[in-house]
């Protein structure tokens, strides 16, 4: 039973932005609804207005070209992403991430835009996009702007979106021809889980096949917002990734990037121990998954 609300289906971005601005805290922008309607089910009256944006033309579809890279409409579902042949081939780390979101049923409704805008530190779709250097195309009543995804989150469940702004698309540059990517989710169950830790890695190596030339690491549920582990990334640059000890030595640095907190779901100490073990392990996995021309 969802408490009564007024339902709006804007046909255009401007209309959506105007509604969002008009209703402010009394309204909620919804796409797939897998988070919002679950929350609204609890019986309490949360929102007077639901603004359903998922039919807006600009938010639809997956576009890709070698030169332009990938452009995901905010209303693209997780299942569309996990089944898309180009994404599977070129952006596998993103597939690894979204595949762990909810269930097939949830992935058929939930959207990538929703996953980003809900801005949960545990979001499985965000980490892979962070390491793929994604950007957000934002539309507001004053026009359009593009914000790198790593700058999109401003605090717990807070984003840069202004009162009159919505996320329209997510763009992802074409990754290097040879790179390694991996997503590791730690949850107690093997499915239907909120990540207690989510680790995303993107790496490139020099021509010798082992010296790290690019490293991007994103951490979920390790800070109030999804973060990049910049100190750890810097450590890896120039290092020999085929040397297990060298890879594992990063465990002494990782806690300079991350600050997992205590919660009833798991205490911080345990999460810190896991980070130290699992970040190097995910780097190893990514290294092992290097695509070669």
């Amino acid at each position, binding site marked *: 039973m969802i408490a009564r609300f007024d339902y709006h289906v804007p046909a255009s971005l401007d209309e959506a932005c105007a509604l969002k601005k008009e209703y402010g805290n009394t309204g909620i922008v919804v796409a797939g609804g897998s988070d919002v309607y679950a929350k609204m089910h609890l019986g309490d009256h949360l929102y007077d207005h639901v603004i359903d944006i998922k039919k807006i033309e600009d938010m639809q579809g997956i576009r890709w070209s070698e030169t332009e890279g990938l452009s995901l409409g905010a209303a693209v579902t997780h299942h569309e992403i996990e089944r898309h042949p180009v994404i599977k081939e070129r952006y596998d780390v993103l597939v690894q991430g979204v595949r762990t979101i909810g269930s097939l049923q949830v992935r058929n409704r939930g959207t990538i835009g929703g996953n980003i805008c809900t801005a949960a530190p545990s979001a499985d779709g965000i980490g892979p996009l962070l390491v793929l250097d994604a950007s957000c195309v934002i539309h507001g009543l004053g026009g359009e702007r593009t914000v790198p995804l790593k700058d999109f989150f401003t605090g717990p469940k807070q984003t840069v979106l202004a009162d009159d702004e919505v996320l329209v698309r997510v763009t992802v540059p074409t990754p290097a021809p040879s790179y390694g990517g991996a997503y590791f989710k730690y949850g107690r*169950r093997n499915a239907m*889980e909120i990540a207690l830790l989510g680790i995303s890695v993107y790496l490139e190596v020099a021509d010798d096949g082992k010296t790290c030339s690019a490293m991007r690491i994103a951490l979920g549920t390790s800070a109030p917002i999804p973060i990049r582990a910049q100190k750890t990334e810097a450590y890896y640059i120039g290092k020999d990734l085929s040397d297990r000890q060298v890879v594992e030595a990063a465990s002494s640095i990782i806690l300079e990037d991350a600050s997992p907190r205590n919660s009833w779901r798991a205490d911080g100490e345990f999460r810190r121990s896991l980070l130290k073990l699992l970040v190097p392990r995910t780097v190893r996995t990514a290294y092992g998954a290097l695509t070669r021309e």
Partner: protein
Amino acid sequence: MSEYTVIGKPALRKDSHDKVTGSAQFCADITLTGMLHGAVLRSKVPHGIIKSIDVSAAKEAEGVRAVVTGEEVPYRLGRSIMDQTFLAIDKVRHEGEPIALVAADTLEQAYAAVRMIKVDIEPLPAVNDVLEAMKPESALVHDRLEDYWHVDTIRPVNGTNIYDHFTLRKGDVDKAFAEADVIVENEYDCAILHHAAIENHLAIAKVDGSGKITVWSPAQSPYYIRGELSRALKVPENKIRVIVPPIGGGFGGKLEARAEQLAIALAMKTHGRPVKVAFSREEDFLAGTVRAGVHFKMRTAARKDGKILAVESTNWWDSGAYSTISPTVTLKANVILAGPYEVDNVKMDGYCVATNKQLGTAQRGFGVAEASYAHEQQMDAVAKALGMDPYELRMKNVMVDGCKGHTGEKMFAVGIKECLKEAAEGLGWEGHPTSWITEDGKIRGRGLGTFMKFTGTPSYTSATIKLNFDGSAVVSYSTTELGQGVGIVIPQIVAEELGIPLELISTVQVDTDHTPLDKTTTSSRATYHLGNATIKAAEDARRQICQWVAFKWKTPVERIEFKKGGIIVQLDEQGKPTGKQARMDELAKNGLIKNGEPILGYGSYETTNIWHKPDPETYQTERLTAMWFFGANAAEVEIDPDTAKIRVVKVVAAHDIGKTLNPLGCLQQVEGGVIMGIGNTLLEEFIHRDGYLMNGNMVDFKIPTSMDSDVEIEMRLIESSPHPEGPYGAKGIGEPAMCATQSAVASAVAHALGVPVVHVPIKGEHILAACRKRLEEANDR
């Protein structure tokens, strides 16, 4: 060649067709004409004094037909202690406790009206921990336990939070410990967990002009609930009718009345209009029932040759805000807490304790899974202390026929030795290490878990078989179908006994106005008890059939013989067949019972006479139960040392079934029980903070998904110890696989890591350090 035609062969359940087409009507699917919808105002705090309730706005709200508060329904429930009212009066004792009710034309209106009720509660400190609750300075959940009526078999302690103190004394424990070569002492605890059937609690109630109350509810034990409601409402049982639609899972959680009393409270004010009260998932977690948490202190004494000399335990069961049937859980666990081993000296003190948490009650095993975990960890610890193989230690001590049980009774039909042997063999125990590192750096371990359990006694049940002229039969009983398969095993028995094809036998919806008396659907008891009653009902039907055939054939009834397979034979004066015969499966054609009096076979089975009341201090008795049953699981686990995540690779489940009636049904119970047991062991727990439940939803209360269940399960049904009084020798299989899974998995983890498992569920944070240590030790070698 089997001596049976139907018994022992796989049979498909009769209700599947409706369940795969969506036409099976569960309680939630029933809409009665004029039906109103109820909603519940629940306490947001775990403990507090109700200062005031203002329902005036709710009463005036759109569509509202009835509003009820606690003082209007001051009826008390409680099988052990009558400590629970329908709605909170004066005080709330757990988060989610119902305070007020609304019935309205639509559910939306009912919810809206509930939100208009103003309740002022002054919070009290919550009794949040079972050991804290035992301290003299603890706040009291119930100020005056002594004011409540209680059954004379339990001993509430006034001025404390103790619902019951159970004691068992056998032999001389102090002497045994003094003489022991090895003493192993440990503490273990198990978290509170929820049954989490996929169907939540709900009920529809209707009160007619004569005051008769009809309830539709997925009650596991409708006669139990009828009795509870009758005692609470002080109306005769014949004024209450419980109708049971298909049940969407029970596991003990649907034993107690939860939604029933709320629907009735509303229906008493709606002038004959039925009211449905359906719990949301959140309500089901907060205000359904749970498996109590427990803390065990265990001490075991052994001789150096491995003989277990004594087992002693004090344990505390976190039974929550109201006692329900939890003293029985404490009792059942303590009776078997020394394990299925011959132990001459046993001393148990079990405390059933009140806290401001959800209500502890029966869950598949009645405390035996938790007890098995504790006694098996002790066995592993003894084995380690003595340098003995854990299997050998167990085999050396297992009970055998004729031995003296923990309650002093002479044991018979004891199948544990064979079970343990088969379980270990299935895993390839002999000569294999119990801990090793795989090539890819994972830690593996193997373990064993045994259990013994008794079925609730004294007990009773009954069945009728109605024979139709067309040769079909209808069997009625009030044991409910919760998915366990009673709805096929009973028709199998009828088919076997009467020679009627299985497809011509149907069952009846359980309805206390129509289907015969049954105590309960719990305790792995249905096949044994109802099977016996059904055999008797079939005997009665056969007697009546023979009378009719004698009449039709103008033959004295002594010369009519009903033979196996349903062949009715005429005998001559010498007792030789005359050649004249008829077949039961041709009743439609041969017209033998056509146009006669209805044939209605009746049979009942009860165990009052075989039960001897145990001594209240020592719990020693001549015979405690109709049926003991035993089993052993062997498990192999793999632990990822980087994540401390445990994967159960294989479970061999060997169970003392006595006689298999439906192998497919047994397989379903065993596979389901093993996975549920794995969930209990690795994933499931209630997490409280100051009495508040943190994880009352399906995301955060983690029952296994298909991704957590990829376990090789091998079932071995042990028929070497048939029960002399069981139907065809059968015992029960509902609880066994689960009872021995927690202990086997914990044993495997403990062996893998070389440290005891002291907390269940076993979480990463408990074992990560041990994993790293185990890995380092291996690398050092």
